[in-house]
């Protein structure tokens, strides 16, 4: 007899999940904390904190060249994370995963290596109006140096990319398309598969900024067929200061090294230095070993609860917040794309986002205010910034109610 699927078994125990996050259980300004700044950085479960603690207490050692036991243990744990990331994004081989400080460094690495080598005067790099500064500025620096041009995919008022315009921007001059999987400011989920396929048709390579997608969306780099994919551990429950770059093997092998130093070499002499194989060629110097090891626990956390179950719950929070916020007098939701991760940006008529942010903080509700490192997007939308609430798996409807209550009080006062 086949088991009857009720769905209940698939539901997450949010109270139990909350217990995994020590930081959530505190008062801020005399009120219980409601942390809605997850698009900036998520909180860390105890397993991540303990992993970091265990490493420094138990087996801190420099990796890869040590013959002693601690070095062996540290190396093993470090490389376990590489394999976990490979599986997390379904890369073909572990050598295609390069550790970096995070998404920003991953993008800069590609600009400084692939970009330096492949981009010539008159070439074109396509980004979108939705990009975070870290997926704009490295390309601007490169374009400036090379005499290349940056072309921009426009965004519609609702926060969706204008795909027709994108296709018109593509030509044989296009060498690289760099776009995000999901927008940090508006939550828009971009049709990256379509973007990648169209770019490849003109022979361009594609880099995906996955900073905001990693916590919420399934990532399969082989299925997407992207050339590069960049992530940060701290956006999905891992430590700050570590992340990864995925790159296709043949691209990585052809790229020049990023930084020179230890680890990235095979042999050094004053006559000639030969470089190590990938991924080590791009990992000069002692890496952030402790955080990389703890990063593995963040991936385990997501895998344990299931990314799709987490995303379904976060989507429920997003819908709930959208409904509740829409009912507030004078409140305007910025970014109403059909497909969104759990990010909600808004403005309230005649009330500055800074005031809203500070007033909510007084009630223990942490939101982000400002341009969210997307000034070109803000300019396109004709605004200076927004208030942004972004949800993680440990948030609750009750917390959203408290935010709404706080907003109601501000609106009432300002009238």
């Amino acid at each position, binding site marked *: 007899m086949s088991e009857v699927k009720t769905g209940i078994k698939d539901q997450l125990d949010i109270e139990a999940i909350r217990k995994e996050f020590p930081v959530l259980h505190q008062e801020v*300004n*005399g009120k219980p904390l409601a942390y809605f700044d997850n698009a900036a950085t998520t909180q860390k479960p105890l397993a991540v904190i303990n992993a970091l603690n265990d490493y420094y207490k138990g087996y801190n050692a420099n990796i890869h060249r040590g013959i002693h036991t601690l070095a062996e243990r540290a190396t093993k744990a470090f490389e376990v994370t590489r394999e976990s990331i490979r599986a997390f994004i379904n890369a073909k081989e572990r050598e295609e995963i390069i550790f970096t400080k995070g998404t920003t460094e991953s993008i800069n690495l590609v600009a400084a290596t692939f970009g330096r080598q492949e981009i010539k005067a008159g070439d074109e790099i396509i980004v979108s109006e939705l990009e975070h500064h870290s997926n704009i500025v490295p390309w601007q620096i490169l374009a400036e140096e090379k005499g290349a041009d940056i072309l921009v995919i426009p965004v519609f008022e609702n926060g969706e990319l204008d795909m027709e315009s994108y296709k018109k921007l593509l030509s044989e001059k296009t060498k690289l398309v760099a776009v995000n999987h999901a927008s940090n400011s508006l939550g828009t989920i971009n049709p990256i598969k379509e973007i990648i396929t169209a770019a490849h048709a003109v022979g361009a390579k594609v880099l995906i900024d996955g900073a905001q997608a990693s916590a919420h969306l399934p990532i399969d780099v082989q299925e997407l067929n992207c050339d590069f994919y960049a992530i940060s551990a701290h956006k999905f429950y891992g430590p700050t200061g570590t992340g990864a770059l995925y790159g296709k093997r043949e691209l990585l092998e052809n790229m020049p090294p990023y930084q020179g130093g230890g680890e990235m070499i095979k042999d050094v002499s004053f006559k000639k230095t030969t470089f190590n194989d990938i991924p080590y060629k791009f990992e000069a110097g002692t890496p952030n070993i402790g955080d990389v090891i703890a990063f593995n626990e963040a991936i385990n956390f997501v895998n344990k609860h299931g990314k799709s179950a987490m995303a379904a719950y976060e989507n429920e929070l997003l819908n709930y917040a959208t409904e509740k916020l829409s009912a507030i007098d004078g409140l305007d939701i910025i970014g109403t794309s059909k497909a969104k991760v759990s990010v909600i940006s808004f403005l309230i008529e005649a*009330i*500055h986002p*800074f*005031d809203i942010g*500070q*007033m909510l*903080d*007084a*009630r223990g509700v942490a939101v982000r205010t400002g341009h969210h490192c997307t000034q070109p997007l803000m300019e396109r939308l004709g605004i200076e910034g927004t208030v942004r609430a972004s949800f993680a798996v440990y948030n609750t409807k009750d917390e959203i109610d408290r935010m709404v209550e706080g907003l109601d*009080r501000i609106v009432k*006062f*300002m009238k």
Partner: protein
Amino acid sequence: MPESIKDIQNSIVEEFSILDGDQEMTNFYIMELGQKLDAMDEHLKTEENIVKGCQSKVWLTADVDGDAVVFKADSNTAITKGLVSLLVRILSGQKADDIVNAELFFPQEIGMDRFIGTQRSNGFAAMIKQMKMYAFALKSKIEA
């Protein structure tokens, strides 16, 4: 004679003590003070009159009235407007020398950096500095 800089500060400290450190009430109170600030003419809200070092926009002007310096201010955010209104209340109408030499103890007494945070505290310090600079610059004009 206006009330002294010290006396006005003491009144402010007393007013804030009633709020008992409740952050939300304090914010509402500061915004209420801002709402009472005399309106600033739109033509004075120029790039030139913006106080540098504030995250919010703060416009500040200073004029001479007899032997006193008169300040006008506004901000694009309600809480910052309330904060600058406190400074206007204390320093506007005072003698230039008194402004330059003023010891502003009220922010510390009311625990301001606790409820406005580091960024706004830095902005607040920038406002005070700008007001003192204006007073210093206008001193010679008054004396002449």
